């Protein structure tokens, strides 16, 4: 970038490298902990290691969608397109995390429940979340009208947010194959520290990855705007 000395650009570009290196370091540490150091489960054996990719992916996909919905509400209230740009930049990593949560959950289901897939409340609601992400991304592809795309993607994000508490509480509200939460903020965590530590490290690594993708996407969007600015000269 030759002339861009814009503060926002410099910050986004510098932080990309830092986040990438941090992600690689923490991911390596997390993989070592998850695959080698962490113990087997007394019931599930080594298959419990799938938890270290499945659970962080599910958490982050839920977190990203909640953030996108909040930003969409702010777009409607404040009419500020920066919120919209942030939400748009978050969507691709959120989709990938929801896909990873679904696929790794399905792989974990085979040795644990004896089936790759069940139309269980938690799994079905996660599939619905993945579909909402897909709808959000596809809306950008198919709608040409910029005002319409703002409205439709905000609507998708806000409507999809209704599904978030359903995912969270599905294991409490309905009788499901899926086990209840082992990690709780407001009540006692039932997972042993030897498993909680690798889970925490992998969650940090995944969060850094989503931040990295967000920064890259946001930077791309800024450059696209700058390019359109140059076209007007």
């Amino acid at each position, binding site marked *: *970038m*030759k*002339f861009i000395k*814009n503060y*926002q*650009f410099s910050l986004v570009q510098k932080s990309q490298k830092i986040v990438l290196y941090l992600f690689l370091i923490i991911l390596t540490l997390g*993989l070592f902990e*998850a*695959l*080698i150091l962490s113990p*087997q489960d007394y019931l599930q*054996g*080594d*298959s419990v*290691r*799938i938890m270290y*990719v*499945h659970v962080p*992916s599910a958490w982050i996909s839920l977190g990203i969608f909640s953030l996108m919905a909040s930003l969409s509400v702010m777009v409607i209230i404040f009419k*500020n*397109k*920066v919120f919209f*740009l942030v939400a748009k930049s978050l*969507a*691709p990593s959120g989709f*990938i995390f929801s*896909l*990873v949560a679904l*696929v*790794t959950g399905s*792989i*974990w289901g*085979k*040795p644990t429940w004896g089936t790759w897939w069940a139309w269980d409340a938690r799994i079905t609601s996660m599939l619905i979340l993945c579909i909402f992400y897909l709808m959000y*991304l596809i809306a*950008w*592809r198919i709608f040409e009208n*910029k*005002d319409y*795309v*703002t409205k439709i993607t905000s609507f998708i994000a806000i409507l999809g947010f209704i599904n978030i508490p359903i995912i969270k509480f599905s294991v409490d509200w309905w009788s499901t194959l899926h086990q209840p939460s082992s990690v709780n903020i407001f009540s006692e965590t039932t997972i042993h520290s030897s498993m909680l530590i690798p889970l925490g490290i992998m969650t940090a690594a995944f969060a850094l*990855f989503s931040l*990295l*993708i967000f920064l*890259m*996407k946001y*930077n*791309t*969007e*800024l*450059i*696209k*705007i*700058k*390019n*359109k*600015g*140059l*076209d007007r*000269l």
Partner: protein
Amino acid sequence: MISEFFYMNGYGYYVLSSFLFTLVCFLGLYIITKSQLTKEQNKFNVKFGELNSEQVKEAKKQKIYKEIIATEIFSKI
């Protein structure tokens, strides 16, 4: 030792395929995002290189943040 690691008491296929799928997804998303970023950067460099000195001055005055708010520029993902 290594074969034990890959076997994982019969769960190796499930565990390693889960990790592999995750890493492949990460790598794929990173490559796609990086290529989109590089493409836009290259496009910018070409466009900027074609500007005359007056246009360069004007371009330097453009503020991205203001542009986002003031204009309705959207792009597809």
